[in-house]
């Protein structure tokens, strides 16, 4: 008697469970498919919207002493990097291009901060790959801590007013930087 009842009103459990799981997996796959594997992303940071932490240190590549407060009035890209990090090596050409594009107008500049690396290696790297902007050493990681640097490469875009407007992880691209600059300029 039970069997007869059971076979007449056959539960469609498998069907419903399959549909539910199917929907969930479809959403998951969509999310996974649209994830950008950590390259040139503008991310949130507690620093964004606040005044940039001060930086005043001698440079290691004979560019005199670097003081962040002196940079007010122009855009500044603060680039944390290391020579042993592959995306840093890859973004270097873009940094050179960006620096070159703005030296004439003087409206934007770059400063690099060494993250957990040897000064001699950094000097060799710059000698080989070019780049004449100030490079600051950070022996005790004070600057990295103050700026909340998670890993390299990470760059911060500082507005002429001294406010941090953006944090870029995963290596910068020239076109991306120019676009961001234009965007922030227009927004002001």
């Amino acid at each position, binding site marked *: 008697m039970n069997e007869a009842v059971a076979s007449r009103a056959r539960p469609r459990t*498998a069907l419903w469970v*399959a549909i539910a799981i199917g929907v969930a997996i479809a959403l998951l796959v969509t999310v996974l498919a649209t994830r950008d594997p950590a390259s040139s992303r503008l991310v949130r940071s507690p620093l964004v919207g606040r005044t940039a932490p001060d930086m005043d240190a001698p440079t290691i590549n004979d560019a005199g002493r670097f003081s962040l407060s002196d940079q007010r009035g122009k855009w500044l890209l603060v680039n944390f990097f290391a020579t042993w990090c592959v995306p840093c090596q890859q973004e270097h050409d873009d940094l050179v291009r960006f620096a070159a594009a703005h030296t004439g107008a003087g409206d934007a500049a770059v400063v690099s901060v060494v993250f957990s690396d040897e000064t001699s290696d950094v000097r060799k790297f710059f000698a080989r790959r070019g780049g004449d902007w100030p490079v600051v050493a950070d022996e005790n990681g004070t600057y990295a801590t103050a700026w909340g640097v998670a890993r390299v490469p990470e760059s911060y875009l500082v507005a002429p007013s001294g406010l941090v407007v953006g944090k870029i992880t995963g290596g910068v691209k020239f076109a991306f930087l120019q676009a961001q600059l234009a965007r922030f300029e227009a927004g002001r």
Partner: protein
Amino acid sequence: MNVNASLGTAAVAIGFAASAVGVVTLGVGLRRRQEKLLRLGRTYALVALVGVVASFVVMERALLGHDFSLEYVAEHGNRAVPTMYTFASLWGALEGSIILWTLILCAYTVAVTVRFRERVVDPLVAWATLTMLAVSTFFFALMLGPANPFQAVAGRIPLDGPGPNPLLQDHPLMAIHPPFLYLGYVGFTVPFAFCIAALVTGRVGEGWLATTRRWTLLSWGFLTVGIVLGAWWSYEVLGWGGFWAWDPVENASFLPWLTGTAYIHSVMVQERRGMLRVWNLSLLLATFSLTILGTFLTRSGVLDSVHSFTQSAIGAWLLSFFGLVVGVSLGLIAWRGDRLRSPGRVDSPVSREGAFLANNVLFAAFAFVVLLGTVFPLIYEALKGDPVTVGRPYFDRMTMPIGLALLFLMAVAPVLPWRKASHEVLRHRLLWPAWAGAAGLVLAVVVGARGLAPLVAFGLGGFAAGSACRQLVLAARAARRSGMSPFGAVVGRANGGMIVHLGVIIVAVAFTSATAFSHGDEVRLREGETATVAGHTVTYLGTEREETARKTTVKARLRLDGGQVFAPALNRYPNATQTIGTPSVDVGLRRDVYLTFVEAPKQPGGSVVIGVLVEPLVSWLWIGGLIMAIGTLLALVPGRRRLPTAPVSEQPVTGQVPDDELVTA
């Protein structure tokens, strides 16, 4: 003309062609019911195997011969690396590891066609072979497309390469961990293929499960060993004193293990009573899908991990394949699932069937938690744009209750009879195991363990161990009674299973102990100075510097407890400019003392910072893993021949423990 590149690519192309044509041939043969075409399945599988074996040989030839005209060799080879590690570097990075995967897959496919050669014209076998060839086609396509191992170097051919990632050198565990993992992952393709075949042909009630049972158990065994080896490698090499961080890559290998474990238990219900068919099909389909998802998460760079591999376009391919596999699986279940349920019913929740059903639910919940925790950061960031981290504390907290519940089931299920149990029976059978649990708890308290969760874990562990031992003792008595050798008490599925359970309990206890009760500190020492850290005295004797062509090593010589000298090191590899720490461990049964070299002296003769970590019972993790492996092998030995089982009847089986010793009231 690049000889290796051409030969290799040709071999892969042959493999691809053979698999693809095999799929089409079998498809046509099934549609038109032409036996001649179905018989060709084995031939195509063989040709595919020849192709992938040839590509393996060519790649090894290129690696061992330091042929830097191949991009793979140029990126991962190095003349100074010892031969064994150069051989193993084939599977040390993405493109080469696909060769290994495909090799194992084609070998399994040929094995299936040979094993089932008597039934080669059976549509079930033909569909299974077709599925396996289809999966092979995908992997061959990967090698022809985004993950081409035989890509030639563009531009100048380098004279030497950077060598494998420093973390992957210098440890034999790294050489054997991937092959074991792959033997496990790929092995699950076989039961997956039979699942698809069963669903397509509608023949889920037959013995296809029993015939593939050994394949599944063997694959599960390989996967278990692979995971334990990975944890061991993490412990020995990575230098943080831990072995399991719920890292996305670790989770990726753990997920199919969870569903696979649920399956090997649940399948016993299908064999004995023909029930839980759709559960079993779903678990196997899920296991295979999870291996593909896991490969995607590991290889695509989408998730941050200590084990991160390089990113490439392979992510899109793997994700699409995952989508396809899941789509086909869910589609088949939705279409056929309800019609294929068995007529049997679980009579009572307090029964062996009920316990296995609860087991399925718990393992499914476990897998859900691990999967959710792993992918949640991605989903959250997609929705909100903010990063969020789901780390060890989350996983530990969420999986602990499930783990404890599973320990409880492990204790109770082996004594539960089929169909229905009375409380009398349970109380009688569980008394001694319960006392074993109490003894375990008391022992832990006496030794000094504190904290509710670890103590409950130790108590339940004792409980479960008591139950497993009880089963083994009963099996020994039964063996003696029927005149078998005492060896008969430990072979066969039931007994081997109990030994595996003992291994699991040991691993669980060791995991709890090493995680909850590890303690230590860092200390700065001048040369000759002694300090007491975590109950052990450490004397810093000085540093030693070693320079070879491959690396520069600075070792800190330490005398531990006035006895042996240990030397944790900091290694610097020329092409990586990163210092990698190598720990030095005083291994013991009761505890390991884990020594790390944290900070090198800033000037010669200066002070150093040493890390000392005491981890109780951690060696039992590896011992437990070994016991699990031995138990699996014992379980694979054929026990006494079983009588064939009708779907809803139960059969007494000789040579094993009689389940219903007492009449159930």
